[in-house]
């Protein structure tokens, strides 16, 4: 790719008379330049929303984050008209739920990927792979409705943090499966064969050779999957109502999170509440971007290259 791009640059700009395309007329050259300008333009247009959103959240919410209270206090007892308080309750809630979601979905996701790559043959494997695709496409609100139907309507439990984790798990499993699968496929068969030849049983080969070889790639997938579910708000609105105080019990009571903190305040007209909303948005974006960067960084240590 890289060597070609300079070469075809040179060929493309040379005026060549040829049979297939005719002499390079002015019109063709103009069209070519126009296309080039369009592609550059498209890229710049695509950057506008990213820069705009980041700029806006930083300008409007940045001053909230430099306040130590933001990282140390909750919103307990603070109304929309009053300034002050922090977001530590929501940050905690988001991190706890993300952690529990990862704890449930990583083993299931990695094992499913191991099944698909190392064990699965025939119909069952096809069915599993198809269902993973379906899970990938399930809208988060449908996943939330399903958990609501299961957790609240059928089992009769309350809307609690753990139910949110279950819904987020459904969204995270497919991303973990797909990324892990890609990584396991990259592990050269020679490594497996060498282990078998030494008489190592299959499960030990997978645990000690295949997974360690692709470990950093799996971590990348997990972090990116986590980054994806952390910003999900629909399951939170249906299953995890907001509260302004610190609450860390996953199985009882309300549990605040950053997305619900935004949802709670977005329609407020009072400036302190608006500031808080931008602050929560910026905090959430920062956490998600950090996870993204960590994920990409972990990928650098990969022993197998795609």
């Amino acid at each position, binding site marked *: 790719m890289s060597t070609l791009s300079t070469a075809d640059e040179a060929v*493309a700009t040379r005026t060549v008379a040829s049979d297939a395309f005719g002499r390079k007329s002015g019109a063709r050259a103009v069209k070519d330049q126009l296309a080039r300008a369009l592609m*550059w333009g498209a890229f710049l247009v695509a950057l506008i929303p990213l820069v705009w959103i980041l700029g806006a959240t930083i300008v409007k919410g940045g001053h909230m984050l430099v306040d130590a209270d933001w990282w140390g206090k909750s919103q307990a007892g603070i109304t929309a008209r009053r300034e002050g308080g922090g977001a530590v309750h929501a940050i905690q809630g988001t991190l706890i739920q993300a952690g529990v979601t990862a704890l449930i979905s990583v083993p299931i996701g990695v094992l499913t990927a*191991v099944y698909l790559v190392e064990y699965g043959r025939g119909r069952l494997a096809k069915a*599993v792979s198809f*269902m993973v695709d379906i899970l990938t496409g399930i809208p988060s609100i449908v996943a939330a409705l*399903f958990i609501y139907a299961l957790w609240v309507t059928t089992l009769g439990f309350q809307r609690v943090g753990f139910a949110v984790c279950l819904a987020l798990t459904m969204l995270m499993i497919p991303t973990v499966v797909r990324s892990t699968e890609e990584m396991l496929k990259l592990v050269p068969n020679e490594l497996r064969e060498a282990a078998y030849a030494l008489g190592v*049983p299959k499960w030990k080969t997978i645990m000690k050779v295949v997974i360690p070889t692709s470990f950093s790639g799996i971590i990348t997938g997990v972090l990116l999957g986590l980054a994806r579910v952390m910003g999900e708000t629909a399951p939170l609105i*249906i299953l995890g109502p907001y509260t302004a105080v610190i609450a860390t019990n996953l199985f009882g009571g309300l549990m605040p999170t950053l997305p619900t903190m935004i*949802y709670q305040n977005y329609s407020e007209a009072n400036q302190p509440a608006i500031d808080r909303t931008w602050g929560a948005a910026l905090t959430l*974006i920062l956490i998600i971007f950090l996870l993204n960067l960590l994920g990409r960084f972990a990928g650098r240590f990969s022993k197998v290259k795609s």
Partner: protein
Amino acid sequence: MPTITGRSAVDELPSADGRPPLEADTATTGRLGDRIFGGLAMGSGILVITLVALVGLFLVAQAVPSLLNNNANFLTSREWVPSGADPRFGIVDLLWATIITSILAMLIAVPLGVAVALFITQYAPQWLSKPAATLVDLLAAVPSIVYGFWGLKIAGDYFKPVAEATSSVLGWIPFFRWDGTPSAKSTLAFAGIILAVMILPIVTAISREVFAQVPITHKEGALALGATKWEMIRVAVLPFGKPGIISAAMLGLGRALGETLAVTLLLSALNTSDAFSFSVFGGGETFASRIANDAGEFDSAQKTGAYIAAGLVLFILTFIVNAAARVVIERRKAFSE
């Protein structure tokens, strides 16, 4: 033969050096460790299947009783009174808003995404190509609710002149009519634009992947015949990438159909007494935004069932779109050798 599965199992293709695929199954011993580990792996796979089956089962099981009590036609009614002695609810308004915003999003995001993918794979200088791809990917990292809030508080105000200009020029077509209500940022058109930004990364990522796979010989062949770079893209890159572009469009569409929060924050409920409007500058709610908006009101089984029925329709819609995308991708695999 095209299947609708994303095949795995090392894809049963011979490896690069021509050996048959590894038949790892034969390596299993009957040892306890192997049986436990293999069982766990298979169990996880079966769990995934069960999960999807349960989603369908639960949604259907809880939607049916409400649907049976429904005194209006579920598919054609515009009313939404899901509870009480005379429950009447229908989805035609939701369906219209969902489909029109998603299609609008696709119409904007697909050409733009393909152009960005072409930029990244064909035009960008080498040092820029990777950072450019990362930047576009970061768009997917911005949470949905932040898009909604940004649209509501900031970007929406800039859409007003656009809506005014469009409706004053094209307002004679019912599709573009706008009389100032709802406000510009609450129109389906603006929701579609925000959705377009949100699905841009996925469209770009998939197109990028197929464009990067275009055989170099095809490109060099075109260039050697004297094609300009754009002509090379037209005769070599785009035809090769076409199935990829189509499936990218459909996966993007699937994403847009189910996108919730950005739309919820922007759109607001319509009065059912108002005349049905075909305009993209009309208001309305999508399936997802209706469910999210009313999430606090799931108090009776009848009422919850009505929303679950709406969710079920959304599930079926996205299922069809995603499965179609999968078929297109599989076809490409079959012919790309």
